[in-house]
């Protein structure tokens, strides 16, 4: 791999994405973290600076192709082509299927899955030319075990797995690896929203007996992004404290 890695992390303003941005930064990559709003992007810039990481926040709505093109152009002009893409941006619109609206389904599939297609395609050409690249998709244990109230989210995350395996086969010969990291129950704003009794129930199922920390996901992503992981592709690494054994 060339000396300077350029890592693009979507949804980097908080939680797992913020931890991934820090971890890859500590590993020496220049970090571009994205958030949907300009204020979110500014917060990322400040956060990276505070963590002693070389990088910047940029505003990006991953459902908007024009924005993706514009951001990638800016990155390549200022920092060079993206060599590590972490598709982390995601949302939830939880409700039982009986009550799920088209909008709930579309919003989650569009933000969580179609964005992976768009982003991966957008960074691919320079990676193919460079004969190197890392694409790491943050899926979820829910995509593998299912979860009542999350048919949309689980479908999007399971879709990511199939996408990852297929893309890995397409681009493996060009030195590009494509993998998933599937977090279990991690202590973030997203899981903080869950009702207490659901949390208690989930905890019972976690062998390690506690919630995971965002840094524990980030460490796995950093490994997959490193030269040491060059022979791992099309794979999902589960980081869930034994909540689900794939």
């Amino acid at each position, binding site marked *: 791999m060339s000396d300077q890695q350029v890592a693009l992390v979507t949804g980097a303003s908080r939680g797992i994405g913020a931890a991934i941005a820090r971890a890859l930064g500590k590993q020496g990559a220049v970090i571009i973290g994205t958030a949907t709003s300009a204020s979110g992007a500014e917060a990322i810039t400040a956060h990276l600076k505070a963590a002693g990481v070389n990088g910047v926040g940029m505003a990006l709505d991953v459902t908007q192709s024009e924005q993706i093109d514009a951001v990638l152009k800016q990155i390549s002009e200022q920092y060079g082509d993206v060599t590590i893409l972490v598709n982390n941006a995601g949302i939830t619109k939880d409700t039982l299927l009986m009550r799920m609206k088209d909008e709930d389904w579309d919003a989650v599939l569009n933000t969580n899955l179609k964005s992976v297609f768009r982003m991966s395609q957008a960074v691919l*050409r320079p990676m193919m030319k460079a004969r190197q690249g890392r694409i790491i998709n943050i899926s979820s244990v829910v995509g593998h075990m299912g979860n009542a109230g999350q048919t949309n989210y689980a479908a999007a995350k399971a879709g990511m797995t199939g996408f990852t395996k297929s893309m890995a086969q397409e681009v493996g*010969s060009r030195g590009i690896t494509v993998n998933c990291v599937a977090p279990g129950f991690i202590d973030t704003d997203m899981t903080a929203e869950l009702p207490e009794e659901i949390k208690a129930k989930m905890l019972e199922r976690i062998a390690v007996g506690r919630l995971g920390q965002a840094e524990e996901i980030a460490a796995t992503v950093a490994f997959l992004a490193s030269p040491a992981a060059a022979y791992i592709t099309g794979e999902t690494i589960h980081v869930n404290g034994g909540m689900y054994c794939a």
Partner: protein
Amino acid sequence: MSDIEQRVKKIVCEQLGANEADVKNTSSFVDDLGADSLDTVELVMALEEEFDCEIPDEEAEKITTVQQAIDYVNANLK
């Protein structure tokens, strides 16, 4: 050799890692130059970049030899 022919052959050499001597007008990308499906897609993308044009998928499928690439560029570029 025309300018376009030269540019096409240069791209074919670069993309497929072929020797200049092996890249003849009649050469088939897959059969003679050992390209796989991804190579041919990359090749078309490289041609698009070089000649600043967009080659539709149904046209791209028909470009299987060096001469066909040269013909396409000649016919579609002014």
